[in-house]
């Protein structure tokens, strides 16, 4: 099964283009691909429950793994144990693992 890692570094408060990764993730998941959305840098800002996190929760409901970089969370004082439903904290190693495994990795 083809594997994709989409890295979202932008946040919906500053950019209206965060829908690109969500839309692409949905399309790829619907085509039965293994898809992970990895939020990094300000990309983690919407993961507090209610903070425009509905899109992320909805995306997780389609089978896309939605992960947030632990360091980016810590840097912004976001409690790893209080993330929006469907979002989990993860280390940056996730990205290197995906690259090593030959996944298609896209930085947005």
């Amino acid at each position, binding site marked *: 099964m083809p594997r994709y890692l989409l890295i979202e570094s932008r946040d919906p408060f500053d950019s209206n283009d965060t829908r690109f990764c969500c839309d692409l993730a949905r399309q790829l998941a619907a085509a039965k691909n293994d898809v992970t959305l990895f939020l*990094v840098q300000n990309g983690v800002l919407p993961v507090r429950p209610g903070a425009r996190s509905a899109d992320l929760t909805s995306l997780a409901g389609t089978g896309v793994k939605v992960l947030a970089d632990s*360091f980016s969370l810590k840097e912004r004082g976001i409690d790893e144990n209080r993330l929006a439903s469907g979002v989990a904290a993860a280390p*940056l190693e996730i990205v*290197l693992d995906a*690259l*090593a495994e030959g996944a298609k990795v896209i*930085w947005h």
Partner: protein
Amino acid sequence: MADKKTITIAIMDAPYENARSTTTLRLIDLAAKRGYNINVFAYEGAVLQPFAAQTPHPNAVHGRSVEEENHFIPKDAIAALMREAEKNGGKIDWVNCGLCVDERGAANAIPGVRRGSPADFWQLSEASDNTLVIATR
């Protein structure tokens, strides 16, 4: 140790302008610790990341001397990553895009950095297990 891989990363940001630079170094650090071979193609402003003339400074706002401030200096971080990769059986091949170097006057880079071209990026990518482009905005 994980199987040895070769990863190519293309970057574009000058130092001190965006969080992408830090995330890139974090990724390179992880790869260096795994002993991977890491190719970095530095395009546009990123050719200044390993610029040898960077110097640290004190921080008067915080009352810190040069030593106390211990300011992050990208060229030193890159040199440390090169040592880390070698220590673990890997290597960092840092290629600065030559025309980008010329127009920025950035030829004075730390040891281990070489001048290259887009053809090098393509060839490095073709010879890698994977490639990640971290473009600027």
